[in-house]
């Protein structure tokens, strides 16, 4: 076991992606690949101690009693292609959909998948419009005929063929580039989109979290207040980074013609920025909802929620931030010692069913 300071990750990959387990001790723990390309999981603050336990993925069910939902999620992640936030999200939604985390989680997962489908359709259409606009072609006829209709598809094909000619590209190449862009930009969406996509919504919610946490911590005499201030600062840094990356992406999309013409140079930049954005915001959704839930409750619950958030807060890796957040967090933990509060029912020492229920309720709200 290593202390938080020694452990401070340098890259997002080293930090790992957050997994929405419902077993309290594992909630929002992070998964990553070790040097032999095997999955491993990082469990922070076990029994309220310092540091992070690193457990091989395969041994996780042996080391911790897990809920049935988590066992299924564990299997799905083991079978997935990778462990990026997108891979994990796919597995999480698939596990939630089967009903092992309750009916609300099923509804939320289905709504999220529906939203993904709609966003995919929307971004595809918007990118086609952008491509046509970039070469001075009108797209209103397509809309008038209806994108799904035969007439609309014929019109789209014709216009896209003309656009490809003007860009000196094969039509299939243009389609291919737009399809790839649509995949990359699906969770982010365009700045002009009538419905902000998932990561844009998350960034807006993270701003709200920062404000709410700052308000809460101001003039608050509780022991959790300095931790709240720290959480708000981490949110602030994350939002600033995310805003920069989002700005780069929006700029690239605004100069769409250049993007299509300089595809080979721009593609890796877009890919990198999109991936960085999803890494930056990874793990925040649960914390935002957890705080939203606690804010309406009593002081004690709020204090506990701040401690829970602090336990798994997504600190920026060393290579990303100017401040060493892991060191600041470590300093805080030395001044903030709590009495023992294991994540089990104190009467029986078994899984705390009420706590699992709370995590499931939040899961039910996650979109």
């Amino acid at each position, binding site marked *: 076991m290593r202390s938080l300071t020694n452990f401070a990750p340098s890259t997002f990959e080293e930090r790992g992606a957050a997994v929405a387990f419902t077993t309290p001790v594992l909630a929002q723990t992070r998964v990553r690949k070790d040097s032999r390309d095997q999955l491993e999981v990082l469990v922070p603050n076990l029994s309220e101690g310092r540091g992070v336990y690193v457990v091989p993925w395969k041994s996780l069910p042996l080391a911790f009693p*897990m809920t*049935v939902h988590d066992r299924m999620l564990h299997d799905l992640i083991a079978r997935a292609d990778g462990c990026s936030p997108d891979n994990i999200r796919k597995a999480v939604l698939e596990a939630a959909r089967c*009903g*092992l985390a309750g*009916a*609300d989680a*099923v509804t939320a997962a289905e709504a999220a998948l529906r939203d993904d489908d709609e966003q995919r359709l929307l971004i595809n259409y918007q990118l086609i419009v952008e491509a046509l606009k970039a070469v001075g072609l009108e797209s209103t006829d397509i809309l008038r005929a209806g994108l799904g209709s035969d007439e609309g598809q014929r019109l789209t094909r014709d216009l896209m063929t003309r656009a490809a000619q003007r860009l000196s590209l094969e039509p299939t190449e243009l389609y291919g580039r737009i399809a790839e862009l649509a995949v990359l930009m699906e969770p982010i969406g365009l700045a002009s989109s009538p419905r902000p996509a998932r990561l844009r919504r998350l960034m807006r919610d993270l701003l709200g979290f920062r404000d709410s946490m700052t308000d809460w911590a101001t003039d608050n005499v509780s022991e959790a207040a300095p931790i709240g201030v720290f959480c708000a600062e981490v949110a602030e840094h994350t939002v600033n980074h995310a805003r920069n990356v989002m700005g780069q992406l929006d700029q690239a999309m605004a100069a769409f013609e250049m993007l299509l013409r300089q595809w080979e140079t721009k593609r890796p930049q877009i890919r990198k920025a999109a991936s960085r954005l999803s890494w930056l915001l990874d793990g925040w959704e649960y914390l935002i909802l957890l705080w939203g839930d606690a804010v309406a409750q009593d002081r004690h619950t709020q204090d506990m929620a701040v401690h829970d958030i602090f336990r798994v807060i997504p600190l920026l890796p060393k290579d990303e931030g100017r401040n060493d957040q892991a060191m600041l967090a470590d300093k805080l933990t030395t001044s903030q010692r709590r009495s023992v509060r294991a994540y089990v029912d104190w*009467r029986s020492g078994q899984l705390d*069913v009420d706590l699992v229920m709370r995590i499931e309720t939040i899961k039910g709200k996650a979109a």
Partner: protein
Amino acid sequence: MNMKDLVALGDRLLDIDEAKFRQVVGLLEQMGDHPDIRQTISAIRPRLVELRPNRQPTLKRLFCNPFEDLFEALGRADPMPLNVIERSLMNGLWPLVEAQIGNERLGRYRAALQDGPERWALTHAFWADCATAVSAIADGEVPGLRMTPARMRALADIAIILSIAPEVAELKAALAPRPVPKLHADHIEAIEAIGRRVSRNRPAALKNFIILAASRLTDPSVLLGGLWDMDLGQKSTDRAALFMALSGTVVAQIEDRSRAFQSASGAGTDRMAVADLALHLVASLDATRAAMEHSRNKEFDQRLKEVRNSVHGMVRTQVLQDADSGIIAALGALEGGAEERAHLRRAENQARALRKCATFADSLGLRGELRAMTQKATASLTEKAQQALSGPAGNARTGYTAIRMIELIAGPAEANKIMDEIMGGSRR
């Protein structure tokens, strides 16, 4: 906004956002003491207790300060004081106190509402005057107040508490914030030190003082456990008498709480609420029984035994009885799709209630019955899961929901084992 509009808002004030709520409370306060305003304030009191907006200090509020912890609890989770004082009694009592003290003297006490060098001296003098006034009211005829034995007792208690109000203020500061879940050494030290002063100056007020201390705890029976070893400067016979008096009050309160679900019929009750109540009652019973070890009293033993029997009956008929059929029926509803969510939520509640019973089944002698019910429900659910997950025409969602119910009832280890058996070990 005029008063009519504000009052018309009523219950809706419970749902508006926090900033607006605070603003509305400020406006209501500015409108003064009026029956309609009082009605609106009582409607929104649960939220007032939760948000604790800075309310305008008034003499009436200052008058209630020493005994406010004895007002009836607003939320289900709030601790219930041992000697409850009706909050609504204040609306009738305060004008009588005002009349008794007289406007001129009251006017002089207004400075106690603001910060200043004389604030505490004035506050103490005000409370002393109020104590005399309430005593006089309690001793004489009480015009305009419908008096019941409970109200007579409340008036006597209020007069006594007001007479030791400065000590009560100290106690409140020591046992803060309310409710205190566990008595620590500094809490006990403070109760002892202040209690010794009360017992020296006004021995008759010591019981009220202890009841006030108990009302600041999450569970009043916790104080009973520590009371026997506390040095409150009394003779041992007085200490035994005080202990018995408090024990009597604690036992009476447990009896009251145990009656809460007695009249409810099995089918319509919230099984989780019954299980929660049983859990708290068993904890109180255990704490009280442990405290009583010092002074074996047959009458209390008998009463506690009766409470235990009634909790036993309540859990058996309202949590255990037919628990499996409700849960299985919810799975049927899942296949039919009718009111799916509401059915499922109810069934999950039943399953959780069953699991919660495991924490106190031993204390109530219900271990065998609980095990039988758990096994019966698990067997039926396993069969359902098997049909749904391994059969060709099965509905996977029903199967997984059945596994989830098993997990809620019997725990994740059992559910994982059954899931592995059904899936033939193909999961890993």
